[in-house]
């Protein structure tokens, strides 16, 4: 039922199919539009609403949302860009909608995965059963940059290593969702999930009245609960803080936003000192103890006494305080050992090994260049593959085969041969697409064009394992581009997980 504000009592009912009359699927799976160019059932109500809008209204709302982002200062910092130090992440106001049923599978799959990964990290720094049993080769772990000697034998509070994970999911042309990678170190993006929702509510209040959308706003509260849980029993009224590298970090907005939402201090390394074995903040009234840090600084920079000696970002002595149980850290140092694209290839094996279950969400088929046979295959098929360094993040240092020149492939082949362990390769997926609002067509009509997307849901391992319903939908705004990273010019969308029961009929992807 619609309480639409459309004044058009006499005019014919708006037809949502009209929205996509000229839409080009381009041969890809589209998250919003079915093959017959009508909206998929999950997006049907949304599209009806859009179709009801007066001409030009959608573009006006889009512009209003962008103005609001600038006014609110929702930005990320760009490295090496002195002038426009901050940019807003382009935001497309058409939400991406996910059915309750599909989400149930995703949620189960993500929980299964993170439990296995967490067991794996603990095992690597502990008994190393999985390595001794040869399920994951010892050499693959020991040759990775993520393994931290300083973490050997650590017993993190509550036995959990990875409290916050952002797992990237992509959908291939057959409609299957694959896990592309697990971000287990300091994953970014959740602040944009919350801000995107806020912007959508502001620009489209009507949409929320006739869709049952699962809320995301309690994420900061759940994160704080997890942080407090980590100090459980040890201290009465724990003091938590977010540890940031500072204002020039690309994710500074997020660090600040989360601290603000949780109502806890945002600290930099220079605000902290380890004294009498405890971590203390420098305050206007002298030192004050900190019990748990949500750290957004990478391992290597966390503590110059334990890791990189030249780091000015961290806190000397932090690791010692952590080791002796006087401060809790989320995520625990060392989680990067599982955030390695070579180790990623073994996650299905970990799930079988630790949980004795079949993986619910499949990995993207992946070749490890460290295996001689795979290396041969990869080098022979570079133009059809995506090749990634095992330890980079942010979409840098990749080769996208189909979009590369012969010279680039030659240069990349040399790099792979130099250090095969450091590279993995995947067949180029036909990533699914979503419609985004482009500049209006010459006749002023709505111009919707398909762009590739991925999805990064966030998982918190606290008193219970919580999966944020939805996640960050990142859009490659350049036509045809497969790279969705914000540092590479990607944009984002609000992501709706419907709470209503089964709209799966005719959904197409099952």
């Amino acid at each position, binding site marked *: 039922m619609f309480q639409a504000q459309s004044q058009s009592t006499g005019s014919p009912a708006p037809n949502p199919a009209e929205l996509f009359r000229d839409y080009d699927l381009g041969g890809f799976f589209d998250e919003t539009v079915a093959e017959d160019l009508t909206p998929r059932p999950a997006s049907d109500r949304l599209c009806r609403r859009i179709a009801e809008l007066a001409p030009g209204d959608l573009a006006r709302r889009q512009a209003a949302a962008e103005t609001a982002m600038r*006014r609110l200062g929702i930005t990320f910092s760009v490295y090496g860009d002195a002038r426009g130090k901050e940019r807003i992440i382009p935001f497309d106001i058409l939400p991406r909608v996910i059915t309750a049923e599909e989400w149930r599978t995703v949620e189960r799959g993500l929980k299964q995965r993170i439990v296995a990964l967490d067991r794996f990290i603990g095992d690597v720094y502990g008994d190393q059963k999985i390595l001794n049993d040869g399920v994951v080769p010892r050499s693959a772990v020991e040759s990775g940059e993520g393994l931290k000697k300083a973490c050997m034998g650590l017993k993190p509070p509550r036995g959990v290593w990875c409290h916050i994970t952002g797992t990237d999911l992509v959908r291939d042309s057959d409609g299957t969702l694959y896990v592309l990678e697990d971000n287990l170190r300091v994953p970014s993006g959740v602040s944009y999930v919350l801000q995107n929702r806020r912007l959508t509510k502001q620009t489209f209040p009507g949409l929320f009245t006739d869709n049952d959308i699962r809320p995301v706003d309690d994420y900061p509260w759940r994160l704080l609960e997890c942080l407090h849980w980590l100090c459980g029993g040890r201290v009465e009224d724990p003091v938590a803080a977010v540890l940031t590298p500072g204002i020039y970090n690309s994710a500074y907005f997020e660090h600040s936003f989360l601290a603000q939402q949780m109502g806890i201090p945002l600290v*930099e390394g220079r*605000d902290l000192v380890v004294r009498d074995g405890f971590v203390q903040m*420098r305050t206007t009234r002298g030192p004050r103890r900190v019990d748990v840090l949500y750290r957004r600084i990478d391992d290597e920079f966390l503590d110059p006494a334990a890791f990189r000696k030249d780091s000015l970002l961290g806190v000397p002595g932090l690791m010692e305080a952590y080791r002796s149980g006087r401060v809790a850290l989320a995520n625990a140092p060392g989680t990067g050992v599982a955030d390695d694209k070579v180790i990623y290839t073994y996650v299905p094996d970990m799930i079988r090994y630790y949980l004795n279950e079949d993986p619910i969400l499949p990995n993207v088929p992946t070749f490890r260049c460290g295996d001689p046979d795979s290396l041969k295959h990869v080098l022979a098929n570079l133009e059809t593959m995506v090749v990634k360094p095992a330890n980079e993040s942010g979409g840098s240092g990749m080769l996208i085969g189909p979009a590369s020149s012969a010279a680039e492939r030659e240069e990349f082949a040399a790099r792979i041969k130099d250090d095969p362990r450091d590279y993995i390769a995947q067949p180029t997926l036909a990533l699914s697409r979503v419609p985004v609002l482009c500049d209006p067509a010459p006749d002023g009509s709505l111009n919707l064009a398909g762009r590739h997307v991925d999805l990064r849901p966030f998982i918190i391992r606290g008193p219970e394992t919580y999966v944020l319903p939805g996640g960050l939908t990142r859009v490659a705004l350049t036509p045809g581009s497969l790279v969705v990273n914000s540092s590479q010019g990607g944009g984002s969308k609000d992501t709706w997980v419907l709470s209503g029961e089964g709209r799966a009929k005719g959904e197409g992807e099952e």
Partner: protein
Amino acid sequence: MLSRVAESVYWMSRLVERAENVARFIGVNLNLSLDLPDRGGEGEQWHPLVVTSGDDAAFSKRYGEATRRNVIRFLALDAENPNSVRSCLATARENARTVRECISEEMWEHLNQFHLMVSEACDARKGEGPVAEPHEFFEKVRQAGQQFLGVTDATMTHGEAWQFCRLGRCIERADKTTRILDVKYYLLLPEPEDVGTPFDSLQWAALLRSAGALQMYRQKHGRITPRDVVDFLVLDLQFPRSVLFCLAQADGALHAITGTPSGTFASPAEQHLGKLHARLAFTRADEIVAGGMHEFLDSTQRQLNQTGKAVYDTFFAPQPG
């Protein structure tokens, strides 16, 4: 609260106040040129503004002649001048960005927009916005500055961070009131025969208007005399831009932060401010005029600087690990 955060909040608030005061400052001359159509143009003196802002050396080196255009460019939109309206707001906004979790969302939003408004005006028409439409631009800056104050008081918990805001604002405002008053000293110098003439009264009125004080002054003193203007802008206990009023507020903020009883001190900051406050509280306008207004203002400014330094040493300086 974190020392770093306290420092950022203090400077955020100081710099917004500074930007607003630079706008008021320029208003002295804009008001004068409005009041004196016959003397306008050639009669305008812009050099005193640069002198009293304390940035004369930097100005002369880069601009040379103190024309209206040069002075407005320097004081309003010069990104290399750290005390220009534009720089103050860019830095205030950057400070706010580092303490977003401690200030209210409305403060952040307002300050972010204020900064965008100013930088867009400065970029517009090849950076001539404030030069071409100075009345409009400086009026907007004054209004936005006042709004920031209102938003701060209405939306931020009146706890320690707010006290640091108040401290920074009041120290800055006290300093700027002495500088606005000092403009008169420099304006007078070239033409001492003007003293006591209608022209002299017009200058004092323009000055009071720039300090936002003309109407309130008239309520209290009526006719404009130099002694009463000094009394009002320096020693009035109830007018919120008078130096003494600002010092009392700053002193209150400081004692609220430390918890030390008023009238005593436990830190260099409290000692410095307390001394300065007492000195003004026990001075009469006649004595200031007789002893030389400029000398008095100058020494007050110096002591305000020392107070600022003492605030730094007491609260913000990195303590030994």
